[in-house]
């Protein structure tokens, strides 16, 4: 480890309703791999966005190579030598690898672009990184892993001094991760500063030198990786032990009937041999890290994506679900993690969204009975305490929590027996979260069966009667709430590198 190259001090950033970063500190040295850890939503990505100029900070200082800096866009950060390898790929699928790497700063030859030189340079880069990719391949023909490698190559080609890896291993295979680590070690040897964001505890141990842990937008502490154990880090990450009325035991009555049974469900690589049962009145938590295959499982059950094999039983009867229509007809409702894209129709009113799945019931002859529709929507607005000026308000004007309530109302309206909540409180502020929790408990008490996918440990522990943990597309464990702790969940959710 060399001298300090980058210091972030007292970084503060608020968004309307959310205090995203609360005076966070971070220090990176040359020739070190610095892990940045924290649960989902701890503020890691926000911090990196502040660093690379995507967000402007409210307070604090960034010192880079001894000078105080402030970047206004990624370009400025890149030019200074700070580059980020994004979690979601920013690639241009129709162009070749080399063209992607040098997009926006092509080599010129006369009036044209010197593709040969770009290919050579890209090949050199890959050589330096020991990656076996043909620079002339079209980007969309590569696997996700290879595309990630290209992103890394692109980052390095910027004469970077600090490279940020944002969950680089999420989509990679075993062998690719090995390759990635080799690259990272090479870069470290070349005296670059590396920030490594990951959820995979074991990777942290293997590759990083120091670990900075964040929690709820605040800085928790920095450890030397060698000197700490996995449990130390987990404890720092989940440090908060106090949360409102956690469940200590399952609220499901003995002998509650099985409502939904899934057997050997397979859908792509993210859903492999998934089997579980869901009881009446139960909240079944689905825990796991990002990319564990929980959403994919839910979508496969719901018929939103095609599945290869597997049986689904509703109330003991085998059912065929190929489309969301089938699922809805069998009484399953799905609340997507991405409300704006998959949940609500933003340009339509609260009432219209509420009845979207049950429109048939509001028809008088061929007409939609608006009065009835509005009355029902109003009932749900009241019972869910949705804050809206009226049921004719466009959903786009509501806050995240209230939008979520509208989606919940949509499925309650349908009287679904099984509700799949995918990240029910993502992007929702604390007050509204509690309301959603109360609501879910009430629904369970009324006999609905709920699957709750959540990346927030506290949420899982607070809400679930039983917890299924997934990792890499497989169920790695099932815990009763009584025996579940953050540590043993995290253990199941993280994978040992073999």
């Amino acid at each position, binding site marked *: 480890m060399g001298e300090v190259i980058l210091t972030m001090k007292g970084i503060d950033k608020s968004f309307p309703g959310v205090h995203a970063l609360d005076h966070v500190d971070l220090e990176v040295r040359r020739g070190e791999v610095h892990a940045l850890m924290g649960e989902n939503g701890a503020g890691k990505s926000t911090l990196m966005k502040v660093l690379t100029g995507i967000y402007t900070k409210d307070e604090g200082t960034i010192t880079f190579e001894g000078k105080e800096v402030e970047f206004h866009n990624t370009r400025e950060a890149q030019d200074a030598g700070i580059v980020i390898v994004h979690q979601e790929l*920013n690639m241009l699928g*129709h162009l070749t690898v080399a063209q992607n790497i040098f997009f926006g700063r092509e080599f010129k030859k006369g009036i*044209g672009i010197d593709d040969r030189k770009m290919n050579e340079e890209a090949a050199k880069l890959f050589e330096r990184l020991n990656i076996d990719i043909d620079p002339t391949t079209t980007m969309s023909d590569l696997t996700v892993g290879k595309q990630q490698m290209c992103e890394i190559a692109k980052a390095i080609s910027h004469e970077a001094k600090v490279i940020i890896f944002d969950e680089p291993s999420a989509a990679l295979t075993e062998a690719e991760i090995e390759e990635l680590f080799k690259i990272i070690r090479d870069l470290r040897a070349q005296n670059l500063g590396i920030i490594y964001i990951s959820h995979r505890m074991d990777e942290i141990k293997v590759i990083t030198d120091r670990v900075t842990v964040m929690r709820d937008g605040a800085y928790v502490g920095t450890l030397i990786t060698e000197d700490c154990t996995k449990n130390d880090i987990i404890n720092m990450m989940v440090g908060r032990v106090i949360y409102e009325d956690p469940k200590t035991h399952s609220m499901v009555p003995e002998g509650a009937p099985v409502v939904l049974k899934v057997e050997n469900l397979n859908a792509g690589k993210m859903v492999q041999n998934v089997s579980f049962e869901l009881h009446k009145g139960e909240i079944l938590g689905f825990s796991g890290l990002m990319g564990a295959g929980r959403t994919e499982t839910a979508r496969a059950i719901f018929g939103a994506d095609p599945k290869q094999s597997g049986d689904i039983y509703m109330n003991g009867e085998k059912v065929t679900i190929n489309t969301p229509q089938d699922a809805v007809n069998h009484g399953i409702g799905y609340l997507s993690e991405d409300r704006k894209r998959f949940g609500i129709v933003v340009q339509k009113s609260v009432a219209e969204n509420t009845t979207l799945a049950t429109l048939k019931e509001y028809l008088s002859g061929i007409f939609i009975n608006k009065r009835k529709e509005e009355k029902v929507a109003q009932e749900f607005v009241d019972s869910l305490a949705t804050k809206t000026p009226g049921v004719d308000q466009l959903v786009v004007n509501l806050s995240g929590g209230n939008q979520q309530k509208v989606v919940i109302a949509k499925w309650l309206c349908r009287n679904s027996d099984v509700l799949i909540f995918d990240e029910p409180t993502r992007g929702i502020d604390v007050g509204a979260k509690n309301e959603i929790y109360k609501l879910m408990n009430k629904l369970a008490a009324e006999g609905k069966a709920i699957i709750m996918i959540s990346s927030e440990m506290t949420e899982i522990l607070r809400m679930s009667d039983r917890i299924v943990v997934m990792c890499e597309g497989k169920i790695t464990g099932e815990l009763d709430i009584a025996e579940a702790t953050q540590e043993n969940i995290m253990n199941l959710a993280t994978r040992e590198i073999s």
Partner: protein
Amino acid sequence: MANQNTAVAAKKKSSLDKLGGQKFIVILVIIALFLFFSVMSANFRKYTTIVSILDYSYYIVLMSIGVTFPLITGGVDLSIGTGLICYSLVGGYLISFHNFPVWGGMLVTVLFGVAIGLVNGTLVAVMDIPPFLVTLCTCMITRGLGAIIVGGFGITWPTATQPGGWFRNIFKISIDARTKIPIGIVWVLILVAVMSFVLNHTKIGRYTIGIGSNKEAARLSGVNVKFYHIMAYVISGLFAGLAAIAYSAVFATVQPGTGAGFELEAIGGAIIGGVSASGGAGSVTGSLLGVFVICLLKTGLPFIGLQANWQQIITGLVLIGAVLIDVIKKRREVH
């Protein structure tokens, strides 16, 4: 480990793709059509017929070279057809009534095209108006404008024997009354080569593809997306201007109020040639080949004695067929 399943190497290319994909099919179709018409009609086999087919295809080919660029950005340019007539009218009007030299008229023709392209591009890229609507409106506007400027008359560019008639030799050199060399095909091929180079080996082309592929990613790479977005429409306008010259050189009189529908032949050709309707993918050579399919159908069907109107029906079906190939291919990839 489970993850090894995912370690499939690069997606396997189908054997079709190795041969050049859709372009390969289109070449086969062109050959098949040509052979079919040649067998069915003795007159079709003649050299003069081939010269004629080329004559009548230049302006559509040129338009389709240009419109390939907006199409690749994920947009469209519907103004090129009526625009072509408008530019040609104005250029010819200046030559005939204001004593412009022929080269001057040609220059105005092309510059007018560039100007309309600039307007289209600005409205699309800077003002964020959907390309379909923008160019639909400029389609109407150029249609009206051309007629108003020239006062409603059909305009004849100088005929071959008149002074200034040299420009008609740009596309066809006459040895004698019966022997013509379709030199235009050489220029068209050169332009195709140049624009292929522009599309594949210059910043303009690279960023055009980038905009069509993932506009946001292109912007985040620090590219002046708006400028290059405008450029795509300027190129389209430029080639509509060049097509106007080709049209004036081949045909006798340019009538105001015509031209609507030319753009669909050019766009249809580009799409048959493999330009993706959603942007990102496409090639200038593909567009060239696609236009030849349309032109062959248009000129070939009368020769085999088929009622002329079947040509439109067949063209419509060919278009759907071409896109269907693309749709089916994409579906296969998803599964």
